[in-house]
């Protein structure tokens, strides 16, 4: 039987618009884009020009510091634009699909007979290594490192998150092959949820499976690492998304680069939230067309409400995004004396509101911050939703003051910005904790590497 880890601290935010377990077919998008900003730490060197013909699996840009790390086109077609921002920073490389979805051809291989280096080389060549992230620093992994372990979380516990079992359906073999391939590089730890019943997860081979019980952030891979074998200074572990494991499996089983994801369209402003098959990097407009309410000004989020980025319907699905969430931007633009009003319809973890009376009620939460930024005033706010064995408040203060020694001592090697998302949500001082943690990690990495 698998080891069961119970997590008590955390919070499940009950939002309106959770995706139902149904597939909605949508037209394939015309435009696809890869955004270098999704791949933290990578300085892109673009290797294509507009009008170049590419197939799925052909590189669009490579890591300047490490050119064998390639970032490949998700579809076949031609490059239409290399968009640059301030100081010529590459914002996106856009590919127009030719509708054929041809991939660079590789040989199907029996992964269990390959060596670690052979697996790494194949992943690098096919552009799949780009999805491997590492702790510490939560950046794209360096292929020359030898990680202690590879962690895969097979469930997402965030509000309105996707149910991985739906994506897994029909891809069970590819998932297992992906895990097999990873197990050639380092021991693989699979974290599953007590609610998951799929046999492909429960009896996955060549992995150490742990069952996690409890509220969000139980599904965060960082929490799973912390609860099983925390990252020490000097150690490296790699993490990869469960759906990306399927991409790896497809490469070795079929010899193809296939970035088809099962993406959820969720949120209170979506009519009939459900799942669709979409290729990574697709323009969001085709996915959302005719499916959004138009009562309020909308915020389209590339990813989850807690960790995703604000985008528009003309934007593109991020490389790591498994969902598009749509919520109202501002629900009430003249919220008179909001701090004193009872505000019956609003969600809060504080008992000064009344949402504790109806724990099952689904809430529509808009994007307002609902308060001004302050110094940290209340204590124990973060601790209540932060299950790791770390003092989050002290770690944040160490980062704000730029104290490298303190950051190390307090466990910065174990965290990623997403681990602080719930803290940021509940924070009455409205500090931008994920940004602070990202800056802290970047500063530390600049110092150490």
């Amino acid at each position, binding site marked *: 039987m698998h080891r069961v880890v119970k997590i008590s601290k955390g919070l499940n935010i009950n939002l309106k618009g959770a995706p139902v377990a149904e597939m909605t077919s949508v037209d394939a998008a015309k435009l696809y884009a890869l955004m270098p900003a999704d791949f933290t730490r990578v300085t892109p060197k673009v290797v294509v020009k507009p009008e170049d013909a590419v197939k799925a699996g052909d590189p669009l840009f490579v890591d300047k510091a490490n050119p064998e790390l390639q970032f490949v086109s998700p579809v076949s077609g031609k490059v239409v634009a290399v968009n640059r921002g301030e100081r010529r920073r590459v914002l996106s490389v856009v590919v127009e699909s030719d509708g054929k979805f041809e991939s660079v051809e590789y040989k199907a291989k029996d992964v269990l007979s390959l060596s670690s280096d052979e697996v790494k080389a194949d992943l690098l060549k096919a552009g799949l290594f780009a999805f491997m992230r590492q702790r510490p620093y939560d950046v794209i992994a360096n292929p020359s490192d030898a990680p202690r372990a590879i962690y895969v979380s097979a469930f997402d516990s965030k509000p309105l998150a996707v149910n991985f079992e739906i994506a897994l359906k029909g891809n069970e073999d590819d998932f297992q092959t992906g895990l097999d391939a990873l197990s050639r590089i380092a021991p693989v730890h699979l974290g599953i949820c007590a609610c998951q019943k799929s046999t492909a997860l429960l009896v996955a081979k060549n992995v150490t499976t742990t069952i996690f019980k409890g509220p969000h952030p139980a599904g965060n891979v960082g929490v799973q690492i912390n609860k099983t074998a925390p990252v020490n200074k000097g150690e490296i572990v790699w993490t990869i998304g469960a759906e990306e494991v399927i991409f790896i499996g497809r490469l070795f089983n079929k010899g193809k680069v296939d970035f088809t994801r099962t993406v959820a369209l969720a949120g209170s402003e979506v009519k009939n939230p459900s799942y669709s098959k979409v290729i990574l990097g697709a323009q969001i407009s085709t996915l959302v067309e005719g499916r959004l309410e138009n009562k309020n000004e909308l915020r389209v989020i590339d990813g989850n409400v807690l960790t*995703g980025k604000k985008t528009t319907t003309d934007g593109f699905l991020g490389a790591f995004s498994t969902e598009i969430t749509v919520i109202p931007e501002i629900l009430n633009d003249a919220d008179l004396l909001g701090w004193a009003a009872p505000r019956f319809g609003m969600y809060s973890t504080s008992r000064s509101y009344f949402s504790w009376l109806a724990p099952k009620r689904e809430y529509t939460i808009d994007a307002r911050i609902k*308060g001004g930024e302050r110094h940290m005033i209340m204590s124990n706010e973060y601790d209540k939703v932060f299950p790791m064995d770390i003092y989050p408040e002290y770690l944040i203060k160490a980062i704000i003051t730029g104290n490298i020694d303190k950051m190390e001592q307090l466990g910065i090697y174990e965290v990623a910005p997403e681990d602080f998302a719930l803290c940021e949500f509940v924070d009455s001082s409205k500090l931008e904790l994920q940004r602070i943690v990202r800056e802290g990690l970047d500063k530390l990495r600049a110092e150490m590497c």
Partner: protein
Amino acid sequence: MKFLRNYIDKIKPNFEEGGKLHAFRSLFDGFETFLFVPNDTAKSGVNIHDAIDSKRIMSLVVIALLPAMLVGMYNIGYQNALAAGVVETTTWFSMFLYGLLVMLPKIAVSYIVGLGIEFTVAQWKNEEIHEGFLVSGILIPMIVPVGCPLWILALATAFAVIFAKEVFGGTGMNIVNVALIARAFIFFAYPSVISGDSVWVATESIFGIGANVDGYTCATALQHLANGPEAIGASGAALTTCDMLWGLMPGSIGETSVIAIALGAVLLLWTGVASWKTMFSVFVGGIAMSLLFQYTMPENPIAQVPFWQHLILGGFCFGAVFMATDPVTSARTEVGKYIYGFGIGAMAILIRVLNPGYPEGMMLAILLMNVTTPFIDYCVVQSNVNARAKRLTKKN
């Protein structure tokens, strides 16, 4: 409410950079955000936020203080009537009205001086105004004797806001409780208005309400107990337990009524604004220390006060509920809160019993523990740091 929103939007440009009223930007900002929840939406990080903010937390504390303040006002009138010997002929309403008239100028002075400084600093630092003083501003008039002159109150408030808070960086950065520093300032600079027996009962009539009593003196219950076996009230008769619980006795304005403070405590604990760990351990510390003295110092009259009387007299309850639990100056780690609370309770009784000059110890106990808080938290956090370091050495 749309017209108000529109009006504010119309006058807003005057306060922005280059506008003719730019010097009052922080004041305008303060009022705008007071009236309407700001419409700023999330730019980075989470896209949704909890509806709680520091304005709501601070206003909850103010609401929690109201029962103690209202009873305090009534008590001002009641003590005045007792001193004049006219309790039977005075209605409760005129006693309350008298108390209100005594109290209003004090509240006004505290808020005008404190908020004036806050607005100036916010303007100068080009920051948004912080809400912290909403609470301090109401606490300060509640923890001084009724006889404290307004100019001393103004001076103390200014000193506390500037030197206990703003020099440290404003709300959330102060080391010691701002309201208590105001009281400590009076205690050390003007001891005559916060001790002795002539400041605890109002003796002057205001607009014909209340009675003029000449040359009247009455000490607080604790002062009586420090010198003898019985606490004597303003009428000259001994105080009953009932008087102590309702707070009908001389003392600082807001601290006397245990029942009213308990109502506030319930609200603070229920909403989670105050930590039950801190509050609980203050009482545990107080009980432990008073029992210790009761059995070890039989000849000292105040050591012989039963432990439950220690808890309901003086500023013990008020300090435990409203001062010790100030999240900024109290311990921030959960284990630390037990130590911090216990320290306050124990220290308060220690000072009461062993300090011959002044029989009240809550203020000094809390200030002392405020100062030790960073050390307590350091030790607690360090145990986590050590565990992590140990894990690393074990690994290697």
